[in-house]
């Protein structure tokens, strides 16, 4: 059953919190106990608290909330001040978890969220823990191909379900800015990110970003776009996908964007097949049949180029975090070495899309 989500981000009367520079796990744990005690109205103790992954962006903690009502396994996600996409907003994830509860798209249930981080010091949200495994694209080869096929087909069907949702009835439809098309606004956002001062300037990215903005196709319909829909961003259990994760880049846009991103060889152990098993034509046929949205070759080619542009922009965020913001994580530093191959692939993809 879904928990009732409690929004506690209306802090208009609360003074601006003093933000710590780095995320201290002990301080987060203490503040989390206070927060849960306050919103539940009963003393809550935090046990089995620990970082669940070492991602590049949001920090994920798993914990058990112990109160007079019993134990609940929950997940806390915190947007650190020096993460890859800082400064963070909880809104895309909160909107997604709220809008999709009870839909054909499985998501963890939202428990609480705070956009200004008054209590913990950083924007955060809490959701239910979903049991299961998160498959990594590169370990896919170790799995049974029939199992992978079943998961890949579900993965496409869930994407179709997401794109069938009437986005106009969700909070994603409300924040329109300046009348610019949503999908063009997303491209402009990455262009602005790439235009920030960094160690390297790539002529092809500057030129290609302008091309993408000038040539962005009209979408067949405007849907909720996950923004990072790929193998590795879901939980599976006993042959079923039980939760789609990581909604931080979710926005309104062209459904081709998710389809192109999901089929990037990078997320499929360098294979052109989805999860290494589902042929491209099979993916498109299944998606069209289940979503009712006709896939355009031209739009798909455009979004394949855009996927590489976005990948390059994300790598540059990493390089910037290391070189300019001096975030000491060597994984960010080595991402810079991927830039030449991504930029070359982007140029080839643009040629195909033009």
């Amino acid at each position: 059953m879904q928990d009732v989500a409690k929004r506690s981000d209306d802090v208009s009367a609360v003074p601006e919190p003093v933000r710590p520079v780095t995320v201290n796990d002990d301080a987060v744990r203490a503040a989390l106990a206070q927060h849960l005690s306050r919103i539940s109205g009963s003393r809550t103790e935090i046990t089995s608290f620990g970082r669940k992954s070492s991602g590049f962006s949001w920090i994920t903690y798993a914990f058990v909330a112990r109160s007079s009502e019993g134990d609940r396994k929950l997940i806390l996600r915190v947007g650190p001040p020096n993460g890859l996409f800082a400064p963070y907003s909880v809104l895309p994830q909160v909107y997604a978890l709220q809008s999709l509860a009870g839909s054909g798209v499985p998501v963890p249930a939202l428990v609480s969220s705070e956009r200004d981080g008054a209590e913990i010091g950083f924007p955060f949200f809490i959701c239910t823990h979903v049991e299961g495994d998160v498959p990594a694209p590169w370990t896919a080869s170790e799995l049974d191909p029939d199992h992978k096929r079943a998961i890949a087909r579900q993965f496409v069907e869930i994407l179709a379900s997401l794109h069938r949702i009437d986005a106009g009835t969700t909070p994603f439809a409300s924040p329109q800015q300046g009348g610019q098309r949503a999908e063009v606004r997303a491209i402009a956002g990455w262009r602005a990110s790439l235009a920030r001062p960094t160690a390297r300037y790539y002529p092809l990215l500057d030129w290609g970003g302008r091309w993408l903005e000038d040539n962005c196709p009209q979408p067949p319909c405007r849907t909720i776009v996950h923004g990072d829909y790929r193998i590795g961003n879901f939980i599976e259990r006993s042959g079923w996908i039980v939760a789609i994760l990581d909604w931080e880049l979710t926005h309104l846009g062209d459904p081709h964007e998710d389809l192109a991103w999901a089929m990037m060889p990078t997320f499929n152990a360098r294979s052109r097949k989805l999860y290494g098993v589902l042929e491209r034509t099979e993916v498109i046929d299944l998606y069209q049949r289940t979503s009712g949205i006709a896939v355009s070759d031209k739009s798909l080619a455009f979004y394949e180029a855009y996927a590489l542009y976005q990948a390059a922009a994300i790598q540059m965020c990493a390089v910037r975090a290391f070189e300019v913001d001096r975030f000491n994580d060597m994984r960010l530093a080595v991402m810079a070495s991927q830039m030449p191959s991504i930029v070359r692939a982007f140029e080839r993809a643009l040629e195909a899309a033009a």
Partner: protein
Amino acid sequence: MSTSFERLIDGIIDALQIHVVPNSNDDFVRGQVYSAIYALNGLKLAADWKAGPLLEQVRLQDDTFAAVERLADGMAHPEIPAMPRVPSDMSDAAAIEALRDDGDRRLGRLLLWASGADARAVNRDLATGIEQLLRRATCDQLKIELATTPKSMLQQIAGGERDGGTAPG
């Protein structure tokens, strides 16, 4: 010394000191790490990027500027620098890297110009030809970088796995 080279060395040292040393309970392993930190501090004082690939990139950029200048004869275009930009006796990698980065920005301005409406209005075919030339040249420049890029270790880096296998535990 190049800023990015120095930052890379500092980052490696910090990662070892902050993440590896506190999580190592083995005296021998800590000794290895401190030795590596010492060696890195030595590299910081004595080493820098290899100048060869940077020089190759700057020369390729110069060839591209010359070709654009020749093709765009008579068209108003963004400024092309005087060449050669690297004196024959220059070996300071940081200075060559700065020239390469400046060259990239200039090539970017030329590419945006050649693919823009103004250049096309003057001579569409010529502008398209220059755009193609610039795209090819910047891709060739990336090939030089690729030649000095080690094989990807994405799965080990992202997942902390050994030899591409599943992480223990």
